[in-house]
C-alpha cells in the first residue's frame, strides 16, 4: 500500500470508511470480553486483610479511560506538530478529530475515579496529584476545543489550536512534576504506585482487553469524525462532490 497517497484527504476518506466497521467490531468484541471476564470470572473481593469490595470493578473502565486520555493527547499533539511543520491539511483535521474523543475519555477517567473514591476514600474528590493532573489535562482538551471553535477561519483555527496543543505538551511534564512533587526535596516518597506485575492476572486481563477495546473504539470514532470534517472542508473539490451526490442518493 502506498502510504504517501493516503496523506491526501481524497484517498483517506474511503480508506477510513472501510476501517471504521472493522475497528467498531473489534471494539465491541474486546469490550464484551473484558466485561464478561471482569464481572463473572474474577472474584468479587480482592486482597487479603483489607479486601477491596465489589467497587474495585470500576478499575476496568477507570484505568483504560485514564490511559486513553493521556495517549490521545499525545496523538493530538503529534498530529498538530506534523501539521505545523509540513503544512499538511490532513494532519490538522486528524488533530481536530481526536480532541473530542480525548476529552470524553478524560471526563470518564475523572467520573469513574470519583465514583471509586467515594466508597474507598470516603470522598468523591480529593486533591491527589494524579486526580489534579487529570483535571488539568481535561482543561487542556477543553482549551484546544474552545480555541478551535472560537476562530472562524479554519486555517487560522487549525494552526492556532495546534500551537496550543504543542505548548500544552511541553508543559505537561512540568505540570505533572509540580503536582506530583510539591516538595522537591522528597519527591519519590509521595506516591506509591502499584507495580503492574503485581496486579492479579484476572484483573489484568479484563483491564487490558477493555483498554484495547477503548483503543479500537477511539480509532473508529476519530475516523468517523474525520470523514465529516474532510467532507465539509473539501466540499468544493470534484471527488467530494461525487461522494456527496452518491451518499445523498443512498
Amino acid at each position: 500500500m502506498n502510504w504517501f497517497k493516503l496523506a491526501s484527504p481524497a484517498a483517506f476518506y474511503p480508506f477510513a470508511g472501510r476501517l471504521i466497521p472493522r475497528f467498531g467490531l473489534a471494539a465491541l468484541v474486546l469490550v464484551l470480553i473484558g466485561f464478561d471476564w471482569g464481572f463473572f470470572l474474577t472474584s468479587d473481593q480482592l486482597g487479603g486483610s483489607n479486601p477491596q469490595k465489589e467497587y474495585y470493578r470500576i478499575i476496568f473502565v477507570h484505568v483504560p479511560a485514564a490511559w486513553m486520555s493521556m495517549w490521545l493527547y499525545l496523538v493530538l499533539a503529534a498530529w498538530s506538530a506534523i501539521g505545523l511543520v509540513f503544512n499538511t491539511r490532513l494532519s490538522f483535521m486528524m488533530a481536530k478529530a481526536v480532541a473530542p474523543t480525548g476529552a470524553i475519555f478524560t471526563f470518564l477517567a475523572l467520573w469513574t475515579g470519583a465514583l471509586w473514591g467515594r466508597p474507598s476514600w470516603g470522598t468523591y474528590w480529593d486533591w491527589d496529584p494524579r486526580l489534579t493532573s487529570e483535571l488539568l489535562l481535561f482543561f487542556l482538551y477543553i482549551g484546544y476545543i474552545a480555541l478551535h471553535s472560537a476562530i472562524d477561519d479554519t486555517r487560522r483555527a487549525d494552526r492556532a489550536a495546534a500551537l496550543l496543543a504543542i505548548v500544552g505538551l511541553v508543559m505537561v511534564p512540568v505540570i505533572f512534576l509540580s503536582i506530583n512533587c510539591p516538595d522537591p526535596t522528597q519527591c519519590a516518597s509521595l506516591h506509591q504506585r502499584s507495580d503492574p506485575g503485581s496486579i492479579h492476572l484476572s484483573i489484568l486481563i479484563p483491564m487490558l482487553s477493555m483498554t484495547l477495546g477503548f483503543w479500537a473504539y477511539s480509532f473508529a470514532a476519530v475516523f468517523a469524525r474525520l470523514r465529516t470534517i474532510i467532507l465539509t472542508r473539501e466540499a468544493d473539490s470534484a471527488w467530494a462532490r461525487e461522494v456527496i451526490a452518491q451518499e445523498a442518493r443512498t
Partner: protein
Amino acid sequence: MMAFFSQGGYGGYVWGAFGMTFGLLLIEILQLRASQRKTLTRLSRLLRLRAPRQTASSAGRAQGTAGTKS
C-alpha cells in the same frame, strides 16, 4: 441476578461508572452519526443550489488581467 445488580451494595458506584462510560460512548456514536447525516444533507443542498451558477462562473472565475499602459 440480584447480586449482579447490587454488586455487594456498591451497585450505585459500579453501575454509575459503567453506565456513564458506555452511555457517553453511545452518545458520541449517535452524535457522530447525526452530524454526518446533517453534513451530508447540508452539503448536498449547497451543491444543488450552486449547481446552476457553478457552470456560469467556472468559465469566468475571478481572473486577473494585467495590462501595461504608460
